[in-house]
């Protein structure tokens, strides 16, 4: 069944490919990538990249300065987090206060799968059993 194998290959490969992050090379790309991950702290819900606010412009300029000075991304982000707190990160950090935020989606998926599994088991074994709690 080479056909089946190739279909399985596709089904597995595509999601893996989609999860490989793109790498930014030029300093321009790095500034844009960094600004997209940081919040404009005076705006309602905009990244530094999208915002037209003066503060956002200043901060983009600051990031550009540090990128051109050769600072690694982590150092620039750490510097900004020190000044503005985790609030500035559009992608919240993984720490005790955000464990549930990050692990929640996986938990939801597993929970839903478990529910579906019990449902399928029931669909295979019982037939028209009115006393079975939660049948259907």
């Amino acid at each position: 069944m080479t056909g089946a194998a190739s279909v399985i290959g596709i089904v597995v490969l595509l999601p893996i490919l989609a999860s490989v992050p793109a790498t930014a090379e030029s300093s321009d790309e790095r500034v844009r990538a960094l600004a997209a991950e940081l919040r404009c702290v005076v705006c309602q819900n905009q990244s530094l990249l999208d915002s037209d606010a003066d503060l956002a412009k200043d901060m983009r300029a600051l990031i550009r300065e540090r990128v051109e000075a050769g600072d690694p991304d982590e150092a620039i982000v750490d510097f900004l987090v020190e000044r503005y707190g985790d609030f500035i990160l559009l992608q919240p950090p993984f720490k005790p206060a955000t464990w549930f935020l990050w692990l929640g989606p996986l938990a939801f998926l597993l929970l839903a799968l478990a529910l579906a599994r019990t449902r399928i088991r029931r669909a295979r074994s019982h037939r028209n059993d009115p006393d079975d709690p939660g049948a259907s």
Partner: protein
Amino acid sequence: MTGEIGLFALILAFGVALFQGTVPLIGAARGDANLMAVSDISSVVLCGLVTIAIVMLGHGYVTSDFSLLNVWQNSHTLKPLIYKISGVWGNHEGSLVLWVLILAIYGAALAVFGRQVPPALRARALAIQGLIAAGFLAFSIFTSNPFARLIPIPAEGMGLNPILQDPGLAFHPPCLYMGYVGLSVAFSFAIAGLLGKEIDSTWAKLARPWVLLAWCFLTAGIALGSWWAYYELGWGGWWFWDPVENASFIPWLIATALLHSLRVAEKRDTLKAWTLLLCITGFSLSLLGTFLVRSGAITSVHTFASDPARGLFILAFLAAVTGGAFALFAVRAPRIRAEGLFEPVSREGALLLNNVFFGAAAATVLLGTLYPIFMEVAGSPPVSVGPPYYNAVFLPIAIPAIVLAAMGPAIPWKRADLPGVLHRMRFAAVCAVGAAVLTGVLQRDPVPMALAGYGLAAFLAAGTVRQWLARLRPARSPRRLLRRVRNLPASAHGMTLAHLGVAVLVVGVTASSTARVDVEQVMHPGEALSLAGHTIEFAGVEDVDGPNYTALQGRFLVTGPGGSATTLLPERRAYLASGTATTEAAILETFVGDIYVVLGDPVADGGWGTRLTFNPLIWWIWGGAFLSVLGGAVSIAERTRPRMYAAGAQPASVQPA
């Protein structure tokens, strides 16, 4: 005077809604046909009364009657007529009246067009609609009276948030509300079915067109909102994972899950409790979205009213509706009998897996939306949950869901052999590889996400088309083929279109997120640069006057690869009434993508900040959404069989194919 008529109509409507919410329930419980029939008449009367109210409010806006507090706060004599009208729902009080009007329209539609729905089920469903309407009318009358008077009467209004003065606003909220509120019909059907203990495949068949209708409007509303954000907000993006966007996206995810599980309930008379749960959850999340937006718990351009009293009212209403519904479900659901048996690898199994993905996705988006509020309540330092978070957690759920969408239609009901299913997917797999290879060849340095995105889209499109053709296959002559096309159920065509729409959307999303080009720089008049094969020359900036604003208008001459020339005129506007400023992007739409131009600030040496963006294939996003809505609309046309409604209704699977 008109204001008083409007308020009086609202109060009368409240009374009618209470009547509609109680009497038919008693009638249904006693089996009294006359009391049940009351529901039809009162639904139509309710709709008429709320229509009067909104017309009166609209009259206030069109005639700029500033003795109405609401009109004074949100309108202005200089506003163009269309924005005076759309101003009716561009604010908290007015949008609430629109909400109730749409609820009443659905009720009246169910009363008038729902003749095949058996009387008891219809009476109960309309009674639930009436109770919901009563709750919202009370909310409107007691906390958000749109007809409050103002003395002395001011000479001029305060205007409307200029960002909301846009054709998109005229259509986006009504459309979205049609979706949001449409889920109330699914909810009412679920509660009515639970009350009457009549949940079977016929119930599912009767509920389906209403769910589809709501889903179509919700999808269209979200797509319109995204399009509006794209051209109005001037950031070049189309989805921001803004809390308010999420508030509409979460019910959409549930509604989509519901559509799929309803199919199982209808065809195989099973997964019914699961389906009911989705009906209840979908509408509850619509209410939760309304609460989030209205209470000021989250801030965004959509939050017109940030008033704790109102938030409290909605929260109490939400608790009553959801709590009551889940309690009823807990009591009645265990008695629902499952009829159809199925194996894990089967259409039922695939649709159940679809529900798993969509349910988990909805819970995920809800978690991300509420988390900052949790943190605030817990007194922790604030966190932001932005697009990078959603991209990280949402894509791993969305991608397998897309793979499943491609394969699901190739899986037979009840029991399927996996090798056979995979065999049927060979063509799609070849297309996926082809698309990925083509991407690799055409783009010198493709990002992995581009390969995956185009591959996925091709897999879904090819799988969908192949399955559609397979259902037509052994037709030798064009005439027989045509007959087979006509004989396929409408839902088969609808599903094909809807899934193709998703494939088109995936292409648009992939292109715009992997191949977008942004150039941000200072340009001087006369300067030109090239972007995606177009030459863009900056000619300068001049002052222009609009009806209720003044603007700086940039002039950009765009020359396409074929020599075609266009002038783009982005603006920076200052609105006279409110003094607020907006940025108006100018967009050149081409087949391969949009040239998106934004004018920035002047620089000391006579230059201007500019942002030029090439958004490849971005219109495929809205085109895909349009195809999906079209698919949903086609599916609605599927005939429902009224005579099937009997105590011993046959499972749909035994009817001749």
